[in-house]
């Protein structure tokens, strides 16, 4: 008879345990971010920076999926007119977000160099960048990651804007500086 309450408790806790089994093994939150694109023209060198990116990572079965998204309009080059032109040429009103997805093995999250295959959705197009290297420094719980995404205008079918009939360079490398925290 003593087994009866035990059995009842077991039955009660079983569904709770099954719900917990579906939650992620580990989750990551993006605390701080600085994304900076660089644009080159024979007469201008411009950097546009956004600190409005948001990110999240979830780990299941040894694999971690990450998503980082930043509004296109959040990039500030120091000139409001240029920023509005950038918004226009990148079709930022129609596709307001830049989304970056990547997957990493959970075991590699603490390594000083992260080799990422990025899927970047921007200006209504998706580009893949294989083996993008990010350098990581870990201080306590904070994982500080820096690297450069070698983006180009043609990757996203963006017509290069021109000044004095000279178009800007095709390369628009994006410097990434992110600080993640496990939650």
């Amino acid at each position, binding site marked *: 008879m003593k087994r*009866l309450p035990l059995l009842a408790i077991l039955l009660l806790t079983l569904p709770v345990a099954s719900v917990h089994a579906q939650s992620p093994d580990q989750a990551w939150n993006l605390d701080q971010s600085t994304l900076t694109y660089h644009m080159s023209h024979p007469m201008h060198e411009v950097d546009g920076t956004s600190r409005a990116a948001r990110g999240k990572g979830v780990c299941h079965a040894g694999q971690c999926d990450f998503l980082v998204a930043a509004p296109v309009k959040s990039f500030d080059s120091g000139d409001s007119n240029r920023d509005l032109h950038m918004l226009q040429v990148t079709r930022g009103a129609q596709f307001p977000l830049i989304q970056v997805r990547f997957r990493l093995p959970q075991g590699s999250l603490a390594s000083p160099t992260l080799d990422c295959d990025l899927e970047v959705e921007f200006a209504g197009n998706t580009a893949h960048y294989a083996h993008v290297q990010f350098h990581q420094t870990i201080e306590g719980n904070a994982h500080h990651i820096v690297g450069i995404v070698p983006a180009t205008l043609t990757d996203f079918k963006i017509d290069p804007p021109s000044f004095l009939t000279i178009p800007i360079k095709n390369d628009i490398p994006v410097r990434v500086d992110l600080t993640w925290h496990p939650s």
Partner: protein
Amino acid sequence: MSALLLQQDTAIPSRTATWARGILIAGICLSLLCSLPVPLRAQTEDRPAAVLAAKSDPLSLPDAPTPAASATSPDEPIVISRSLQPPAQSPPPSAGPSLGDLGLTPAETEGSAQRQALLDRRTHMLKVHQRLGLITVIPVAAACISAAGAPPEHGNYGNTTSRDVHVALGAAAVAMYGATAYYAIRAPKVSNEPARGGIKWHKYLIYIHAPGMVLTPILGAMAFNQINSGQKVHGIASAHGGVAAATAISYGAAIVAVSWPIHIKF
């Protein structure tokens, strides 16, 4: 198992047996309820369309999930860059966190074709503004240069050719300036935020060259009439040259300001 438990129940006092039976039944009911194949909220959030499709048409298979790029244009292929190599790691996930998980609202994630069209129109008009503005530099400069021959030489009021050329160039400059300004004024305004950077000075300088472009031809006409009537230029008309110079300089400065900072690098 149940029979064994019931057999054991007969051997204990009735109140305890009732409690135990109640707990057991409650536990079984709860476990059955929880084990029903009802998807969790997080599982249903991102795939409402797939769930609806399965319910509405049970005889046909649901469509295969479309890649992210198809959200923009189903005809356009996904751009593969950087050496076209297949990724060495497992491909980037289609699952994983969603935009909703980032706390982004639909207003932040959904685009507006109407707003994009407004931006396109603005850019088009400002490109015309820029082109006309640069072309206007030519008649403005020519009018400034031809101004040297406009005053009567040594009291010779009869020769008006160089003066007429100056008037024609000045008129062309004003007309071109008007067309340039039209495209800037008529370009749709898409942001109420204060201007930052070179465009701010570009706009401030309007307060100098716009009145100058109105005053210069008026004063020029007054000076022209005074010379034609055999008088020396006098009164407010004598400010024509100074006002024109200030206008031309501020106009040039406005062009430089909107292009600033300039780093020549080939």
